[in-house]
């Protein structure tokens, strides 16, 4: 620690802190442009000058570290002059655009020109004009406004990792540019306008439509992925203008999926009126029609994980009161309903993952699934900390991984078995290891990578969808748990078991429904076999998403569908009754992210139609079913919620980041089972721009998704001598399919990599296929 004096106040900061950071930490205002706490220091704007006693010239505070006893002053006559000159210089080519600039009202340049500028420019010569650019789907520019702080260049290099922005030319001709026009292929591109201190980089979708001071801000939680970022939804009147990050949140950035999904909040796919038999009806009629289909019937409940915990608790109340034995599924991908040794959710914070000695990514397209965790991974890699990965594809990352092993999903057992064997050979034991090993035969070389990583003092396992959705997931995860145990990663103090969940609120869902959990395919199967009369679908779209669209379609031929949701999906055509619920942006409520971090949204967005909060709909249904209503207010409902999930009582707003809900554990031994498979394993992929009803309804995201599109069916060139463009006939347990094949060598041989939608959607539920000849 270093003690220094800022404007005669004594402050103590960590050694090596810059003067600017020390000032920021002690709430002393120093103007700056190019400095950004998440980026490297460039020190090129010269706005942050301060005086240091005994120093002949004022240093730039952003790049000058503090030293013991240093006496800093941030105000002096000389500094007034210096800042005025820096401003004059920065404004030389700057146009007088404030009245038409999106940044106006939240612009550093504008603020500082008021505060530190001279009010008059002396530059009378020709001003230069720079051509505007389009940087990816979301960022437009007005480059003449650029002050060359290079924050955006550093962002592209250091954060996005695309490195496609730079400084061209020199001196007076200097300009910020991308490699080619139309660049910046980052899933974090929406952050660029935020980091640009002036109005040079602009948020494309909200360009030229509103001013910052007209906005009403609604603090909320993004539910577009399990990360659950803090967001501020900005609206003007009834329109949603944009989504912004909240300063001081755990993650400094937002991804493009969460940021640009907002156009779906207000578009025509929203469900705003109750619908029965394809007609808009009153709430009363809709409820009556639903009751006719539900009362005394055998129902299956499928819900999406993204409702507030209050909403989910209300679903539980409905089930407990009126449909005692109804099966519940809350995930459209998981095949294995047995409970896992460590259930969905993280045992570590993203910061702990960044700091761990080792990180192992198992079967996950992390960059698309959890872009901000990928960002942490990237920070590790830049700091030379190891990250290894095993999976069926070398999913695109923005950092070089130390080891990257390709395997087929069927190899997971042999990978884990070989890791267990190696760990045991080192004398590291956990009860149950031998039994697990005895149930397996093969060994896979990738096991060494896993075993080596686990030997580190602290190790983060990031277990992804390839394992979570595996047929034998419970056995695999039990194997991983044994490995962690054997290697001394005790749950009490050195846990690193992170199972990436499907969506938000994983810990709450396990607490609420784990006992009654089914795979959504079981529910469809039951419906098909006449064991159910109706399906109550609360918020997801099993036809548009997930692995089981075929079963869903089959089942809906036999049973009635009552859908409650905020937005319509592909399945909605089949619903007998559709009840409109408020979206995540429109509710007061609690949300839990994958880390177990709890957030409460207080100021929801205005509701435009007749939609109601989910919990009220649940209560209304209960009333109509002739039951007592367990809760008539959010407060009463929260009493039930606290009964279901006692940890939540401890949470209040003031200590939001102090309490983390842990994921459920199961110590039962689950051994791998041998099953016969066809020759190729099927892996279905995830696209952050197309997955989920919200993303598909968002035109902004759809546009961006088009650019990243891959072919529907992809194989490695060595897989049965696959040729690009050839048509292959695939035999599955459900019949034959023909597809055009594309080849890529970043996929494991022996794997058929398919998109869940489009032509290959029909085989997404299939685990393995035989390929039956191919013709050119």
């Amino acid at each position, binding site marked *: 620690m270093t003690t220094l004096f800022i404007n005669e106040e004594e402050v103590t900061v960590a050694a090596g802190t810059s003067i600017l950071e020390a000032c920021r930490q002690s709430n002393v205002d120093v103007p700056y442009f190019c400095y950004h706490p998440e980026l490297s220091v460039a020190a090129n704007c010269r706005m942050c000058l301060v005086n240091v006693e005994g120093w002949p010239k004022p240093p730039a505070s952003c790049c000058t570290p503090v030293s013991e006893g240093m006496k800093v002053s941030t105000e002096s006559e000389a500094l007034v002059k210096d800042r005025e000159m820096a401003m004059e210089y920065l404004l030389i080519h700057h146009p007088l655009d404030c009245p038409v600039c999106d940044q106006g009202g939240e612009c550093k340049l504008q603020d500082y020109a008021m505060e530190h500028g001279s009010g008059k420019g002396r530059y009378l010569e020709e001003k230069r004009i720079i051509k505007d650019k389009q940087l990816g789907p979301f960022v437009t520019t007005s480059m003449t406004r650029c002050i060359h702080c290079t924050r955006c260049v550093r962002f592209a290099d250091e954060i996005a990792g695309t*490195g*496609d922005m*730079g*400084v061209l*030319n*020199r001196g007076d001709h200097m300009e910020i*540019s*991308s*490699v080619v026009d139309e660049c910046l292929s980052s899933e974090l591109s929406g952050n660029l306008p935020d980091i640009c201190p002036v109005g040079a980089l602009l948020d494309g979708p909200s360009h030229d439509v509103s001013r910052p001071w007209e906005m009403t801000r609604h603090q909320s939680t993004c539910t577009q992925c399990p990360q659950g970022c803090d967001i501020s939804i900005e609206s003007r009147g009834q329109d949603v203008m944009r989504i912004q990050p909240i300063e001081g949140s755990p993650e400094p950035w937002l991804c493009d999926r969460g940021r640009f999904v907002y156009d779906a909040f207000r578009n025509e796919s929203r469900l705003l009126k109750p619908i029965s038999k394809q007609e808009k009806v009153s709430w009363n009629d809709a409820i009556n029609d639903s009751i006719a289909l539900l009362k005394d019937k055998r129902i299956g409940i499928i819900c999406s994980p993204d409702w507030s915990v209050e909403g989910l608790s209300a679903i539980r109340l409905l089930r407990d009161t009126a449909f005692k034995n109804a099966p519940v599924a809350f995930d459209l991908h998981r095949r294995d309903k047995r409970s896992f040794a460590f259930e969905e959710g993280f045992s570590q914070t993203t910061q702990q993952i960044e700091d761990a000695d080792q990180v192992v990514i198992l079967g996950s397209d992390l960059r698309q699934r959890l872009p901000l965790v990928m960002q942490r991974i990237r920070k590790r890699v830049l700091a030379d900390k190891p990250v290894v990965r095993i999976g069926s594809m070398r999913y695109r990352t923005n950092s070089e991984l130390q080891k990257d092993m390709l395997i087929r999903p069927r190899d997971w057992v042999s990978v884990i078995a070989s890791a267990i064997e190696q760990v045991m050979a080192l004398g590291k034991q956990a009860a149950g290891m031998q039994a697990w090993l005895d149930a397996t035969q093969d060994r896979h070389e990738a096991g060494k990578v896993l075993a080596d990583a686990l030997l580190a003092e602290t190790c983060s396992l990031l277990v992804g969808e390839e394992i979570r959705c595996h047929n034998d997931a419970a056995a695999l995860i039990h194997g991983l748990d044994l490995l962690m145990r054997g290697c001394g990663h005790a749950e009490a103090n050195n846990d690193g078991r992170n199972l990436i969940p499907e969506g938000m609120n994983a810990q709450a869902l396990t607490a609420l429904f784990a006992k009654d959990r089914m795979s959504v395919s079981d529910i469809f199967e039951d419906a098909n076999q006449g064991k159910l009369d109706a399906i109550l679908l609360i918020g997801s779209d099993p036809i548009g998403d997930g692995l089981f669209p075929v079963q869903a379609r089959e089942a809906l031929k036999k049973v009635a569908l009552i859908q409650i949701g905020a937005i319509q999906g592909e399945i909605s055509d089949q619903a007998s009754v559709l009840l409109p619920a408020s979206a995540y942006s429109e509710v007061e409520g609690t949300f839990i992210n994958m880390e177990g971090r709890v957030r409460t949204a207080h100021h929801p967005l205005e509701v435009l139609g007749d939609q109601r909060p989910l919990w009220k709909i649940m209560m209304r249904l209960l009333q109509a079913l002739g039951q007592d209503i367990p809760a008539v207010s959010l407060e009463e409902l929260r009493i039930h919620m606290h009964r279901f999930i006692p940890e939540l009582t401890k949470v209040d707003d003031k200590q939001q980041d102090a309490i983390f809900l842990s994921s459920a554990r199961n110590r039962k031994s689950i051994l791998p089972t041998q099953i016969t498979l066809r020759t190729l394993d099927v892996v279905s992929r995830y696209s952050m721009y197309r997955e989920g009803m919200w993303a598909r309804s968002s035109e902004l995201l759809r546009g961006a998704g088009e650019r990243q599109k891959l072919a529907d069916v992809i194989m490695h060139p060595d897989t049965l001598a696959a040729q690009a463009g050839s048509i292959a006939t695939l035999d599955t347990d459900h019949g034959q399919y023909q597809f055009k094949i594309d080849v890529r060598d970043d996929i494991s041989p022996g794997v058929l990599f398919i998109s869940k939608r489009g032509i290959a959607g029909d085989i997404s539920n299939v685990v393995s296929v035989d390929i039956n000849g191919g013709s050119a």
Partner: protein
Amino acid sequence: MSDVQFSPQRLDEILTLVKRYPKAQSAILPVLHMAMEDFGHLSIPTQQLVADTLGVRLMMVREVVTFYTMYREKPCGRNLLEVCTNAGCMLNGADELLAKLCEKLKIQPGETTDDDMFSVIEVECLGACGGAPIVQINGDYHENVTEHHLDDVIAKGRTHDPI
């Protein structure tokens, strides 16, 4: 990968050169000169080739290429005339000289004649102010250049004689 490729000899040369520096990226300047020698100018595919050869990002190469005026991104004519218009040369009539030259060739600074014989560009101080005005022609310094001398140059250039 781009279609442009270095010859095997060139690649050897580059590899020897790279070994002299602590990092491959330090060799950007000389490798760009070699590329310009080989391909005449530094098109984006050529810059990509340099980037790939040295294992750096294209943007870094772009930054270097555009920083220095002596790297040419566009193809130029058979004869390159670089007219200095900095202070010393300006005082000795460089601006008029440039205007005359352009008039004779019917092009603007930065352009190439239709027959691809001549390109004219305006450059900063060539460090030979003693002989101002200076025109660098195909790499050679021509000092105290007059309109008459330019006529000579143009005539020789047109007949494919060395200037």
